[in-house]
């Protein structure tokens, strides 16, 4: 399943949700669906899921979508247990699994083709776990997945499609954070 096409499907289901995304998935998402409610400043080292949890707990009436990476999740595996324990029903966690550290030279992640992120999420205590490897199936089932109470995980078996420019200056900018802050207050 091409990542850019999967993100275009997701765009059709995103209105007022808070979207936390990382690395190439973030850059692609910003090109496909630029909006101020995109949360772009997660630092590094797999912290997106924890930012998503913070947003979900502090904004219980808003839906939070995390577009995580497989390498990122490996750096913060404990957050799966933390999220399951906190059990926010407004958090949907997507892992875009391509098996490589794409923006850092495309080196394979440890456990490439071996690690089972869905099983990890289930074992951690996520309420719902879905695995998508086919775009047509994803198109048909994503709405139902998003209706499930969180914490819910969708493992997205993807390959790079069209890769959009990596604007690191923007995602680390004060402007991006302020745009999100203001949009959150207005939403």
């Amino acid at each position, binding site marked *: 399943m091409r990542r850019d096409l999967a993100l275009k499907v997701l765009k059709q289901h995103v209105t007022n949700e808070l979207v936390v995304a990382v690395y190439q998935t973030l850059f692609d998402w910003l090109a496909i669906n630029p909006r101020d409610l995109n949360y772009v400043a997660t630092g*590094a*080292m797999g912290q997106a899921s924890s930012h998503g949890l913070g947003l979900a*707990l502090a904004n219980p009436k808003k839906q939070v979508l995390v577009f995580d990476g497989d390498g990122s999740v490996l750096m913060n595996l404990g957050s799966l247990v933390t999220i399951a324990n906190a059990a926010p029903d407004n958090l949907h966690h997507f892992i875009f699994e391509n098996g490589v550290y794409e923006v850092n030279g495309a080196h394979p992640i440890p456990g490439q083709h071996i690690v089972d992120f869905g099983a990890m999420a289930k074992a951690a205590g996520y309420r719902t776990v879905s695995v998508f490897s086919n775009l047509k199936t994803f198109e048909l089932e994503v709405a139902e997945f998003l209706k499930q109470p969180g914490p819910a995980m969708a493992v997205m078996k993807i390959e790079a499609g069209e890769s959009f420019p990596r604007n690191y200056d923007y995602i680390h900018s004060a402007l991006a954070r302020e745009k999100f802050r203001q949009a959150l207050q207005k939403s």
Partner: protein
Amino acid sequence: MNLNKDIKYPSGQAIMDALKKAHIQFIVSVPDIITSDGLLWPISKDPEFKLVRVCKEDEGVSICGAMSYNKTRALLLMQQTGLMDSLNAIRAIGIDYQLPVCMMVGLQGKEPHKLSSESSSYGVRIIQPVLEAMQIPYRVIESPEDVQHITADIETAYQTSSTFVFIIGRAPV
């Protein structure tokens, strides 16, 4: 926890009162032996606080930072080992992104009658120099009188959107 009768210790209840006065709603924590009995256990039973137990301290840095976007106030309660393990997250989220991440850090291994700079523990001695090198403001909480500054320090951190560390050098009682 063995307490030295000749030394004054900060009050856990007074610290909790100061946190409430500063509108802290969420306590995010990995247990720390210095603050366990006097703070974390009482906090866990206090309905005015929402406790988020995290597996690792850097998760807490991100959680507190994310919460601040809608002005929800949180405190990350941990041991200095967790602080050291979280330095990159603090660098990115607290310093580079200028988010108000407030932390309370128990100094495991510090002798109550000594300054941390005089501790026999290397892990204790380096904490203040590390914070100073990272230009992170902090306050040492050791005596009962030190607690009176907590509310104002948190207010300042949120008003100025800057990170702040309270170093707990003696176990709250």
